[in-house]
């Protein structure tokens, strides 16, 4: 079974953001996995690109950073070397340079450090749910999903609560820069030339840079040593510390990557609980071990970071296709996560799926999501708290998706809840 939406005839144009406004074109991905696993797409306003859609291929190539490099950009857009240098973060580097930065920031996001946040996350979830559920009928995307990652990032970065909404709005402008609801400078429609050296080719990036700089200076002046920022700025065992530029870029990356991804996963989960009430029942009556597996299944299901791009550093051949040096290759994680040659019944949500070797976090390569332990914990705790409080959740209006082929998911989800 695949889930088919109107307009997805199996030949959706993957470079067109409008192909994703009803959710990912899964019917097209299924056809590509079957018939054309390394497919060429003409790029429209950009150079064309290759799409890798099979689980096994992505797993095999993702670790081969010598052949398929992150160091010429990780989004579809073409950028000059000058633009690349001005805008890059460690996500846009390859080992060994990448390894160096990753070692410096990794500890702050490691599983044991993140596990220490469970209490804080639970308190935030209580606060958020008390506010949202009191209304009985509300937009779960903005009242629940958007709130938790935003407030949590505020906690771990030590950002004052009054700045949070501004910060997340800027983060959305960076990532969802193809949806007119989130930006005044729609990437594929307006002229963004003036912003080409700014992070994500967006003026919001420059504002975030300035904010990050001030935040660190203020904290230093106060002698504030709380939170992840401090931990990140500490020298490691070898005495190295990340540079100010690296830090500033990294801050933008966190605000961008740490918000909408978890948000869309939460919305996908709540949407699933509303449309398949038996799932809510399983969470409420199932064994406790269901909480070891449920979050990852929702993350696989949502796959909010639909693709990341690499660039070929040499010619190579795969499935009869000739990729040339300099060509862009997209890893469609969202497609790999529905590949039935790897997953049993990939189009079903199985909250006890184990093992669940999905690739929503970019598994199989050095760039595997730095925030994965945080995301997993936030999703588990929020769903635990939600399941404790509600008898039922029903959709009370149509849901809507972000206009993007990059990071996407449900941006509006009207629901009605009955409390226990």
């Amino acid at each position, binding site marked *: 079974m695949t889930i088919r939406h109107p307009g997805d005839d199996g030949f959706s144009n993957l470079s067109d953001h409008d192909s994703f406004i009803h959710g990912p074109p899964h019917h097209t991905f299924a056809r590509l996995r079957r018939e054309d696993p390394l497919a060429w797409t003409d790029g429209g306003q950009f150079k064309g690109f290759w799409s890798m859609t099979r689980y096994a291929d992505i797993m095999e190539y993702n670790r081969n950073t010598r052949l398929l490099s992150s160091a010429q950009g990780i989004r579809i857009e073409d950028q000059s070397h000058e633009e690349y240098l001005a805008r890059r973060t460690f996500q846009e580097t390859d080992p060994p340079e990448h390894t160096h930065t990753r070692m410096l920031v*990794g500890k702050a996001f*490691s599983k044991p450090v993140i596990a220490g946040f469970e209490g804080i996350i639970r308190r935030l979830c209580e606060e958020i749910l008390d506010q949202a559920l009191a209304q009985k009928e509300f937009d779960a995307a903005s009242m629940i999903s958007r709130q938790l990652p935003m407030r949590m990032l505020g906690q771990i970065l030590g950002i004052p609560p009054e700045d949070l909404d501004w910060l997340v709005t800027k983060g959305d402008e960076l990532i969802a820069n193809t949806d007119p609801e989130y930006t005044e400078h729609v990437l594929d429609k307006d002229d963004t030339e003036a912003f080409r050296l700014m992070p994500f080719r967006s003026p919001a990036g420059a504002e975030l840079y300035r904010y990050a700089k001030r935040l660190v200076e203020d904290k230093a002046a106060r002698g504030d040593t709380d939170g992840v920022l401090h931990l990140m700025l500490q020298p*490691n*065992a070898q005495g190295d510390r990340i540079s100010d530029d690296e830090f500033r870029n990294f801050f933008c990356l966190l605000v961008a990557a740490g918000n909408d991804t978890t948000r869309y996963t939460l919305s996908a989960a709540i949407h699933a609980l509303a449309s398949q009430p038996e799932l809510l029942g399983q969470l409420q009556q199932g064994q406790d071990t269901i909480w070891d597996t449920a979050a990852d299944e929702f993350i696989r299901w949502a796959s909010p970071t639909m693709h990341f791009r690499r660039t070929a550093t040499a010619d190579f051949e795969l499935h009869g296709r000739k990729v040339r040096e300099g060509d862009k290759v997209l890893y469609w994680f969202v497609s790999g996560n529905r590949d039935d040659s790897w997953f049993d019944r990939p189009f079903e949500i199985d909250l006890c799926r184990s*093992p669940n070797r999905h690739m929503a*976090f970019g598994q*199989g390569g050095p*760039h*595997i999501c730095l925030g994965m332990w945080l995301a997993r914990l936030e999703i588990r705790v929020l769903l635990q708290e939600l399941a404790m409080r509600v008898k039922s959740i029903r959709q009370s209006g149509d849901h809507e998706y972000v206009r993007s082929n990059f990071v996407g998911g449900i941006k509006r989800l009207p629901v009605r809840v009955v409390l226990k």
Partner: protein
Amino acid sequence: MTRITWKIEGDRDISGEVEDGLNLMEAAIAHDVPYIYGECGGCLSCATCHVFVEPEWLEMTGPVDDVEDAMLEMTDVERRKTSRLSCQVEVSPELDGLVLHVPIPE
């Protein structure tokens, strides 16, 4: 082929013949060893392939480099003197009979 054994406290041992040239993380996954996930594919980015090496075998598994050492600070179960990230150890005939202990999270 090289014989490797994974001991899982309170559970059965898993033992198997492993093809030389694979690393110990790939070998664990091929044998469905629980708690070894190897999520970054052996790129030293995840620390989800942590094992304790039976002390008498430790030297045979070779030296720990700086990156592995830093990543060992990020494991779920706290590192010990015998800790290795199993993606960093290549299976070779000299390791025939190797015994590993799988760290079990709380």
